[in-house]
């Protein structure tokens, strides 16, 4: 049993981390909150006083707001659907007996380790460029007109790039979950004559449910915040301005800090709603 002495030592050892994280959370958060109720234009007069909820109203009533929400939902939803579906298929395939499994795994996981600015620029220039990109060469080889990916199919292109980055994450987690499945259960089902699709639907999928939920929640939090991929490809043009990017533009590009901060508060609330669900699952796991 822990003694009084070790308890106070424990508190002392925890203190730096707790204090730092508390400061990291509270100081900027309260500043954002304060700014959001002010007319604050650093380059045009600075702090121009309190204006109540004006920024909150203006942020949601600006013509850029709803399109940005829509863009955010399409990107997050699109990437989730692609990574989950292909992640499940890929993890089942990788779980099968084969030659060179370790190497294939490495190939599949690799994109996750590529920094976002590199993957975005490589896709933008070397694959998707309408003149010199590899896709353009490929299209021309089949006699088709090369596609202007990042302007004509901008959302699809961003979804493709981001999915490529996150598919390894989904696959790896689902593969870990599949490997924890009792193989005797599957063998028994097979012997009882359950066809592959039934084995997938009644054994594998239910077993993966928790892992899928975790992938969805964690990816959603990261996907809501994607920035570099848009920053270096379209800079928010061609309908790719997400909520995160809109706030970034308000704050740093047009230096309307009050308005951007109100947007920031919305983003924080949104992220917290998702976080609550994630924490429930993670918290339950702590008790186990």
């Amino acid at each position, binding site marked *: 049993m822990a003694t009084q002495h*070790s308890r106070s*030592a*424990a508190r002392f*050892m925890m203190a*730096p*981390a707790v204090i*730092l*994280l508390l400061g990291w959370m509270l*100081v*900027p958060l309260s*500043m954002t909150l304060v*700014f959001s109720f002010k007319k604050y234009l650093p380059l045009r007069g600075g702090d121009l006083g309190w204006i109540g909820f004006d920024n909150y109203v203006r942020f949601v009533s600006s013509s850029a707001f709803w399109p940005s929400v829509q863009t955010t939902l399409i990107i997050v939803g699109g990437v989730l659907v692609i990574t989950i579906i292909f992640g499940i298929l890929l993890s089942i*395939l990788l779980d*099968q*007996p*084969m*030659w*060179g*499994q370790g190497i*294939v*795994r*490495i*190939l*599949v*996981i*690799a*994109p996750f*380790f590529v*920094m*976002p*600015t*590199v993957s975005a*620029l*490589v*896709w933008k220039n*070397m*694959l998707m460029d309408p003149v*010199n990109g*590899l896709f353009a*060469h490929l299209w021309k*080889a089949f006699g088709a007109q090369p596609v202007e990916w990042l302007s004509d199919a901008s959302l699809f292109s961003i979804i493709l790039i981001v999915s490529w980055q996150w598919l*390894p*994450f989904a696959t*790896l987690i689902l593969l*870990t979950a599949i490997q924890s499945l009792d193989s005797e259960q599957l063998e028994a089902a097979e012997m009882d004559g359950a066809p592959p699709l039934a084995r997938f639907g009644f054994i594998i999928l239910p077993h993966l449910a928790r892992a899928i939920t*975790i992938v969805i929640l964690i990816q959603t*939090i990261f996907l809501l*915040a994607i*920035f*570099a991929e848009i920053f*270096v490809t379209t800079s928010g043009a061609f309908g790719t301005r997400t909520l*995160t990017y809109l*706030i*970034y533009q308000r704050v*740093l590009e047009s230096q309307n800090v009050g308005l951007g901060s109100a947007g*920031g508060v919305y*983003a924080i609330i949104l992220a917290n709603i998702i*976080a609550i669900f994630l924490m429930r699952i*993670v918290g339950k796991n*702590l008790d186990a």
Partner: protein
Amino acid sequence: MARAVTTRRKTINTVAAWAIGLLIFFPILWTILTSFKTEAQAINDPPLFFFFDWTLENYAIVQERSNYMRFLWNSVIIAGGSTFLGVIIGVPAAWSMAFVPSRRTKDILLWMLSTKMLPAVGVLYPIYLLFIKLGLLDTRFGLTIVLMLINLPIIIWMLYTYFKEIPGEILEAARMDGATLKEEILYILTPMAIPGIASTVLLNIILAWNEAFWTLNLTAAKAAPLTAFIASYSSPEGLFYAKLSAASTMAIAPILILGWFSQKQLVRGLTFGAVK
């Protein structure tokens, strides 16, 4: 008969998995290949795969023209420094929560996790302003601190799940033999905890190396790490594919290698122990 079927299935699996694996890996492979071409060969139609005049000149040009080494060094300092600081602060915290748990331990852990969920863009201006006021904008020190703070929750969580796996009986036995707290940590916990700490370090170097929100927004010329350096290629002049490829290859190579060692830890670290 059954054996033959298994071999056939195994062959099909192998072919399918390799095809998909190579397809997913292709953009990286293509980047590496292109980095060894001349600029003219890089945009050649039809594309050149292996039969071209391999050259190292792009690597030399990238280093010469943009002083690549300085960005690399910034990345090393920032990723290494933030991880080091994070582990120094995280180990005692995770240790105390794992071995001297109290009623509030779970709440504290979940609260720490919640700070990780805070969208960076929501606090962009306050941090930006504080950085200006404190003279930290475009400094390696400032960025190191910020990256340490955003990764600290993951560090503590990972360490916590590893420490939890160390059996408590061993500690009790040591205490009964009269080991002091210091001896307990130094001679018993540390050796058992080293694999967990190593994995934590590995994953966090990867995360910090690739971080591309704060590194893009809080640096300019001086402290810019590789993420920001590569971003400068988004508005290039003239032919640049081969040079972009060379710069990219150099930027991702160290992390690809580290990453392959840390596959398992990746799952644990990024799901906060919820999937092992």
